[in-house]
């Protein structure tokens, strides 16, 4: 294994060798800084062993932003290579590795942790709960995600990245055509983080269904919680399909089975089906919580109740159901009959119906409101035209006869970036800006944020509009180079400029965060946006037990109603005296369990079964240890609560 890695690094591209050196230096820098500032204990006690959903949410957010940087650098490298015809910046192999990891990282290690961040930060607070249903499991989920992402990111410096596209179709992804460790990294890191995702799905379904404050019936629940419920339902049904697909592909590669090769009666089509049975619902997993964030933001910053609440709930649920009837549209061109293609074409178009309804409801929430153009609102507003166009091109792709032409062309690239950036990323940034004061106790600087907003948005259109045109010009996806005669040069060059503008936009966000940590406006009220839902009734940042007293809910926008009543002079009913609160203990087991999975995964990547076994034993030991633990919680006394509340 060591020889293999050394050999790989010696022959690697200078770009990869440089990043390997940079990675090692960064790591040494972090270790030095933590030691110098004596922060190891703090890091361990406050963060690594925490089971507090708010801190876990923040860790998800930080990891997602780091991964967004990595995926973004990948994107810029690709766009640089494609800026001119016949470029020689990246060779074919390196380009293939970059687009494979770009896709995987952006979907699984950016979009997923970002939605998990928002869920963790907001859901328990919005429903008036002390914590999620299974705080320990929540920490396990995070560390599985973390170590999955770490394993995936090691691939480009230790042994070679996956290079068969983010979909990794066999037989290209089989040992016969991809003999290196790259696809093993892909299979195992996705598998490890996927376990965490399923656990998060279960955790939040139970949290939402069982832990709402008294009086909060389902139809009084904030729309963000509804959207998370819809998204989690999709997670628990979709992710097992990915688990199976990856497990079988892993067995083909590591143990020599033939699930996905025709040769011994297997079938690559089975992988394609399983992958997309997960893969298409996956994009709704990422987008559904965004619909919820938008509903909260649009309502708050229009100072108006959300329009058509029942329609909004119905459309969320409808999308979570229809999402299972669309997967074949990813392979209309793999020879399914016209009946099958017709069914899946119409089902795919049908997703546009509830989505369209949501857009109209947002517009009419703003209608006759008072719209404040803050950062969260700007990102929500820009979502609407972007998603409308992305939805329209989605309908164009959903029509099977049109798809026979668009499939595998740049039109597809433009479409899904428009829905995933214009949808998921814009919406999640809106959510990040919206809940930032709640998470950290200060607001982010608006001026820098507006620079980021305009750079990112203009860059987005400059980058992806030309790609629709390139699709009409017959440019196929995943080509690392193209001859000048194709005439694709100009539009590709324009697209590359757009990508760099987006890069500048991202840098502005980084600067904005760093600047605001020092100079950002402190949030002393806990309710900086004049919010409507329960999280704004708490101080920022929120004490770790959330609510000193669990509130009673009478209305849909509970906090807004309480504020209105207070204005009218109606005092809230006298509170019962404080009682001691029971909270779960911190635990290092989730971290060690993630680490054990990482060791097992790393062993399997290189077919080192001894290392893999050690890792798996570690997992079992962690589970045993946990099940033998008797005292997993502690009480917070009334005095302590009073102290916390007073400060």
């Amino acid at each position, binding site marked *: 294994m060591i020889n293999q890695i050394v050999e790989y690094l010696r022959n690697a591209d200078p770009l990869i060798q440089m990043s390997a050196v940079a990675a090692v230096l960064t790591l040494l820098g972090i270790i030095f800084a933590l030691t110098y500032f004596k922060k190891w204990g703090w890091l361990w006690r406050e963060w690594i062993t925490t089971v507090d959903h708010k801190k876990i949410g923040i860790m998800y957010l930080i990891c997602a932003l780091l991964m967004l940087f990595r995926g973004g650098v990948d994107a810029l490298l690709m766009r640089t290579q494609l800026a001119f015809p016949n470029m020689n910046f990246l060779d074919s192999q390196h380009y293939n590795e970059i687009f494979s990891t770009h896709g995987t990282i952006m979907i699984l290690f950016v979009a997923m942790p970002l939605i998990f961040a928002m869920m963790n930060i907001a859901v328990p607070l919005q429903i008036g709960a002390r914590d999620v249903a299974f705080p320990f499991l929540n920490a396990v989920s995070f560390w599985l995600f973390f170590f999955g992402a770490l394993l995936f990111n090691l691939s480009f410096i230790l042994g070679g990245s996956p290079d068969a596209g983010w979909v990794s179709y066999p037989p290209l992804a089989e040992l016969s055509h991809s003999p290196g460790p790259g696809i093993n990294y892909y299979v195992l890191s996705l598998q490890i983080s996927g376990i965490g995702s399923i656990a998060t799905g279960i955790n939040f379904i139970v949290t939402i269904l069982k832990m709402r404050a008294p009086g909060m019936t389902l139809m009084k629940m904030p729309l963000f919680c509804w959207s998370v419920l819809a998204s989690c339902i999709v997670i628990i049904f979709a992710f097992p399909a990915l688990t199976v697909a990856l497990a079988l592909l892993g067995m083909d590669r590591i143990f020599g089975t033939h699930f996905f090769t025709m040769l011994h009666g297997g079938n690559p089509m089975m992988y394609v089906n399983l992958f997309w049975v997960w893969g298409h619902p996956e994009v709704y997993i990422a987008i559904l919580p965004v619909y919820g964030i938008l509903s909260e933001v649009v309502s708050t910053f229009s100072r108006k109740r959300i329009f058509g609440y029942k329609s909004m709930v119905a459309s969320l649920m409808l999308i979570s159901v229809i999402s299972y009837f669309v997967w074949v549209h990813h392979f209309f061109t793999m020879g399914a009959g016209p009946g099958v293609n017709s069914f899946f074409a119409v089902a795919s178009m049908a997703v546009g*119906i509830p989505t369209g309804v949501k857009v109209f409801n947002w517009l009419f929430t703003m209608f006759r409101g008072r719209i404040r153009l803050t950062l969260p609102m700007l990102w929500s507003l820009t979502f609407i035209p972007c998603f409308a166009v992305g939805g329209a091109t989605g309908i164009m792709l959903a029509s099977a006869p049109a798809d026979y032409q668009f499939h595998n062309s740049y039109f597809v690239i433009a479409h899904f970036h428009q829905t995933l950036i214009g949808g998921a990323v814009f919406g999640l940034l809106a959510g990040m800006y919206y809940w930032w004061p709640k998470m950290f106790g200060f607001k982010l600087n608006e001026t820098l944020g507006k620079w980021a907003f305009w750079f990112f948005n203009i860059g987005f259109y400059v980058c992806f509009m030309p790609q629709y045109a390139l699709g009409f010009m017959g440019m196929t996806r995943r080509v690392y180079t193209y001859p000048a005669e194709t005439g694709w040069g100009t539009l590709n060059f324009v697209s590359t400029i757009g990508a760099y503008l987006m890069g500048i936009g991202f840098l502005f966000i980084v600067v904005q965060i760093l600047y605001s940590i020092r100079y950002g406006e402190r949030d002393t009220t806990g309710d900086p946006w004049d919010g409507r839902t329960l999280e704004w009734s708490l101080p920022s940042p929120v004490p770790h037990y959330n609510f000193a007293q669990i509130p009673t809910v009478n209305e849909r926008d509970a906090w807004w109603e309480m504020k209105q009543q207070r204005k009218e002079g109606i005092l809230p009913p006298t509170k019962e005296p404080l009682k001691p609160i029971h909270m779960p203990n911190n635990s290092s087991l989730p971290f060690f369990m993630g680490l054990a999975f990482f060791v097992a995964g790393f062993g399997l990547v290189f077919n080192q079964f001894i290392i893999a076994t050690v890792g798996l034993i570690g997992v079992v030991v962690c589970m045993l240890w946990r099940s033998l633990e008797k005292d997993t919680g502690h009480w917070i006394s009334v005095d302590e609560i009073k102290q916390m509340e007073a400060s």
Partner: protein
Amino acid sequence: MKKTGISSRLKQVLFSFALLFLLTGCSDRFVLLDPAGPVARTENWNIMITFLLSMLVVIPVLAIMVYVVYRYRDRPGNKAPYTPNWDDSKILEVIWWGIPILIVAILGVFTVRDTFALTRPPSNQKPMTIQVVSLDWKWMFFYPESNIATVNYVEIPAGVPVQFVLTADAPMNSFWVPQLGGQMYTMPGMEMYLWLQADRPGVYDGKGANFTGKGFAHMNFQVVAKPQAEFELWVKSVKASAPPLTKEKYNQLVKPSIADKQLYSSYPATLYREIVDKNGGMYWRMHHGEHESHEHH
């Protein structure tokens, strides 16, 4: 095949509308908007109609959004009405549930009609068959009716429906000639079927559309359509002047490499079947049987 009765005037309008959307003027590069055969034309029509109907929603949404945000901004002295508790209107909701349902229903009808239409031969002429094998990283074409073979180059008679029978002796790829019509995957051990037809003589670019590794970007080929008589002359000249394709030569071709155009005067009769079978074709046939379209219905 009878084409859908869309007037050329309307077509021009649609075309310029699309170009407007694409912000450009040079049309001949836009191969998807320049169909050269009945299959591509059906698909092009489908693209246009989905585009137009989607715009029926997108344009009002953009207009309403700009108007609402401008009118109801929170600024001092804004006299626009403010109704913080107005959150329900059955009439409005029925309208915007209804419109998308109607649009999807209309699109659904066209989509189903065209999807079925594309599985049938595009015209009544006597069709011909060409077998296609995608290799790493080149395209192999067999002409079973005349026993010639080509690499990265395929010649067809204009005005004749051609059934391409596709398989792979390498990872999956996708066979795509944009101006003649949509694509179909090539998969090892399986056979897929794609009808294409060129209306007029010409040279059309074909490409591998599904990623297959290092040489993927160079997996392009040309489709040359010629009048029937010239096509037959070409077949004769290939038979007369090109070398035969032997098993050894094929085994060389299978190895990953990028190739130029090549012509072969003959090939072993069983070669194509062997290619399908060595990739597991017998298991495929076990489940799917021989494809009925060999009988040219």
